[in-house]
């Protein structure tokens, strides 16, 4: 497991990292926690000529309240998200989701920004990021811009973040306790065969689904069926049946498309039931 030759640079500021990305273009890859990039490099599935390690950039790891939202630095580890009292008190879904990621070692190294921008179709965070209607800040040569969660995931391993941009911050709204993430894991990798995140708020229900399709998505059919209704068990069951409507489910040795679609429905129902129980 030996990667191909590469150069290694370690910027100390976001601005310097942006300049390095601009300079090296497609030859460069950002290294955050390394849990996607390094295995890919060791298998020689990724052969970047330059690795730009943003691990030592100060002030990219934090969780703090900012207005009505909670701001999370892109380099915050899954373990810190999982353990954050601020998140657990004000917006517990992300902390719950982080607890489902990998194992202790993975959570101690992997970062929220790295995970989101890698956009693995079976990663856990995307479901919750969508359900929370989060905002993602990116910095590039053209300055800073904010991407809405619903616009962030573009396709398999593709996001709205440009090759010369860096994710710096994720903001999630404060929520009630009526949230939940329910996942069926792929036994080998621990990623999601299907994961459903739900947020039940004063203005309706939002549902994010990961693992099922080439990219995580909002289960619009479920949200619509629940809008403005009292969340009875019957309604939840009927609405959850829409969790994979209109998507093209993935199939592989771990689960067929129909099983993934089915799990999306089951886990959506269970997440909704769980969130209701938490009210």
């Amino acid at each position, binding site marked *: 497991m030996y990667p191909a030759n590469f150069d290694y640079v370690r910027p100390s500021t976001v601005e310097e990292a942006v300049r390095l990305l601009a300079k090296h273009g497609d030859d460069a890859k950002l290294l955050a926690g390394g849990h996607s990039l390094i295995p890919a490099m060791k298998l020689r599935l990724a052969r970047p000529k330059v690795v730009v390690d943003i691990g030592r950039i100060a002030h990219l790891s934090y969780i703090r309240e900012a207005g009505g939202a909670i701001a999370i630095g892109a380099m915050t580890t899954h373990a810190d998200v999982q353990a954050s009292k601020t998140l657990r008190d004000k917006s517990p879904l992300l902390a719950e989701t982080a607890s489902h990621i990998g194992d202790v070692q993975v959570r101690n190294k992997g970062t929220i920004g790295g995970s989101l921008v890698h956009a693995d179709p079976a990663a856990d965070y995307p479901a919750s990021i969508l359900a929370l209607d989060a905002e993602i800040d990116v910095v590039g040569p053209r300055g800073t811009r904010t991407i809405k969660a619903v616009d962030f995931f573009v396709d398999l391993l593709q996001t709205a973040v440009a090759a010369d941009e860096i994710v710096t911050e994720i903001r999630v709204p404060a929520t009630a306790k009526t949230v939940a993430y329910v996942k069926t894991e792929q036994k*080998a990798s621990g990623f999601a065969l299907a994961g459903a995140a739900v947020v039940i708020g004063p203005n309706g229900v939002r549902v994010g689904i990961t693992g099922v399709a080439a990219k995580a998505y909002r289960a619009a059919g479920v949200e619509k069926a629940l809008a403005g209704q009292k969340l009875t068990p019957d309604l939840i069951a009927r609405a959850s049946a829409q969790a994979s409507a209109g998507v093209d489910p993935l199939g592989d040795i771990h689960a067929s498309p129909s099983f993934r679609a089915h799990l999306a429905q089951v886990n959506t129902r269970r997440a909704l039931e769980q969130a209701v129980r938490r009210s």
Partner: protein
Amino acid sequence: MADANTTPYVGRAMKRIEDPRLITGAGTYTDDLRLSGMVHAAILRSPHAHARIKKIDTAAARAIPGVVAVLTGADVNASCGFVPCAASMPDLKAPKHTVLAGDRVYFVGHAVAVAIASDPYVARDAIDAIDVDYDPLPVVANAEDAVKSGSPLTHPDLGTNVAYTHNVSGGGNIDEAFRKADRIVKHRLYHQRLTPMPIEPRGVVASYHAGEGALTLWTSTQIPHLIRTLLPGMIGVPENKMRIVAPEVGGGFGAKLNVYAEEALISHLAMRLHTPVKWIESRRDNASATIHGRDQIGEYEVAVKNDGTILGLKSKTIADLGSYLQLLTPAVPTLTGLVLTGCYKIPAVKMEIVGVYTHKMATDAYRGAGRPEATYLIERLMDVIAQELKIDRLELRLKHFPAPGDFPFPTSCGLVYDSGNYAAALTKAKQLANWDQLLKDRAAARAAGKLSGIGVSTYVEICAMGPSKAMPAGGWEWGCVRMEISAKVTVITGVSPHGQGQETTFAQIVADRIGVPIEDVVVMHGDTAVAHYGRDTYGSRGTAVGGTAIVMCIDKILTKAKILAAHLFETTVDHVVFEKGTFTSPGVTNRVITWPELAGEFYVAKNLPADLEPGLEASSFFEPQNFTFPFGTHIAVVDVDRDTGQVTITKYVAVDDCGPQINPLIVEGQVQGGIAHSIGQVLFEQTIYDEDGQLVTGEFMDYAIPRAHDIPDYILGSTVTPSPVNPLGVKGVGEAGTIGATPAIANAVMDALEPLGITHMNLPLTPEKVWQAIKSKN
């Protein structure tokens, strides 16, 4: 010093002596070796399951700075002999197995070329730069397809995909048994292919001393001695100029009970290049080019009377051997035939085993090797019979157990089970599981609409391998015990533990019998320069066979020590009393001689009787007269999630009888690990090749092994039935867990699904498969 007040070490649940160095990262594994001038090898492997190699262009690879050499089969095969298979059977059709491919490749992962470079990164760059022109050929990746007429041939030059047909028949007349039957119960079972996945992959370092003509080979193996027996014939270095070292070995499970092409190839490269060479296997290479386990498909028929009496068992098994024969590849399925009748009196058996070549990696011994397959099938069959005849499944089992007085018990498969009390283990397991309550809980769960199941397996297996007449290359074991001049004790064993804990258990045995503190005992192993002889570690043989050789050494040492003590007491040996490390001679003298004094006399040697040699060391070979046959009962309780097909083990009880336990903590660890292997096999593990022979499960991202959160809290118990085969009475426990557990868990899932009318599913019982089965009944 052990004294009258200390309890014996044997029987104590002591922590392992070897663990602190392993836990603190202070162990030395093969990859930790750094030899002066050492270069690194990387192996290019075939991406095709079957292809003709038209051309290999190594020029670009050789041009990379730091590359020492790039070699192909044409360069090295003539100097490396053939990879050996130790199993000989009549009419076995075997391909010649060279260390690198010749003009064809026969499986994905087949070694095609080797690059040697100054560091492992450059070596890997070099194999990427080798250009191989392949002409893909027709592939057969399924053993049942392989035996159909018109199938592509794995090795066209053999003219058939059938390597051998092995017939087992024994006991009474099988045809008569089936004629007398009230009912024939039929079942088809698939034992899926598994990848052993030791956490440490294989690795080899070879160093050749040209002046002495001597080779030292460090290899992550279970069998340094068998390699020293077999490697000379491959590379031409005589046995007495060859030293094989197994450093710390990070898991074997049978996958390292083999002589691999790389062991000969890397040795040859060290000789050829005049410098030490290291090769460390990657995970992907381990998944594709280290042996796999299981992979049997069987059709079974049982002749039964309406009262449940089993009259006979017939089976036809296809064993998928993969493309080549490794050390024991063809023999493993025959072990299934040896223990086909399980722990039951079944008067007549007939079994046909067909070993079949396919374009896949070789199968070979994997934890249990043949016995898990046999146990799974007989234990599934017992449940199926009980269900069809509406007989209680425990009653059916009890009805067919040999009674304690029936031992030694000759089976229809030709073995003689040494000792046993199968009903006692079953009774104890029922008590530990609170059986009656389990039945009530299951009834309540079912009434509430839940899918809840209880599974039982009663097993017997073959351990302590074994009598030399039944083994390909000797089944004895060697040991040596030496009391040093300082009264420290050095124990050398020919077994090669790699997790089994014999540095601890042998020290316990020696400390008790010689009467010294365990801290004064060191157990050495795994280096043929130290342990001159040995048959190594596999088949749960370490303590039963290797431990007995040590006991024989101790007896010799004590006999010799008493002669000197008698001399010093100025009396005769029959007046010497030895107890807990001290020699006395009551009624003759009040003098007390302890080991430090006696050891000193042995080596200073100024005061020895005329006919007594200096020194206090003894070695012994132990030849077992039979295998041992541990047994037990496992009970698993599961819940099945109707919506997701997810199986959860809610209770697990195992009662294993491995005879007297030297160290109950180690026994428990072995049982726990074995059950974990079964949880993987029953619920999610499987090696998958697609129809083109591509390996789909080549990484941990796709090959699922059990993790901590998959493991329930086990309730473990034991019964103790000593074996008459060795003086320790021990039977072996390394494989028992995985032999007993697979059918218990599978039976529990099938029991949970039985109310839905689901009677059969193939392993692994993955959520999707269970969900599909449930859905099909809705």
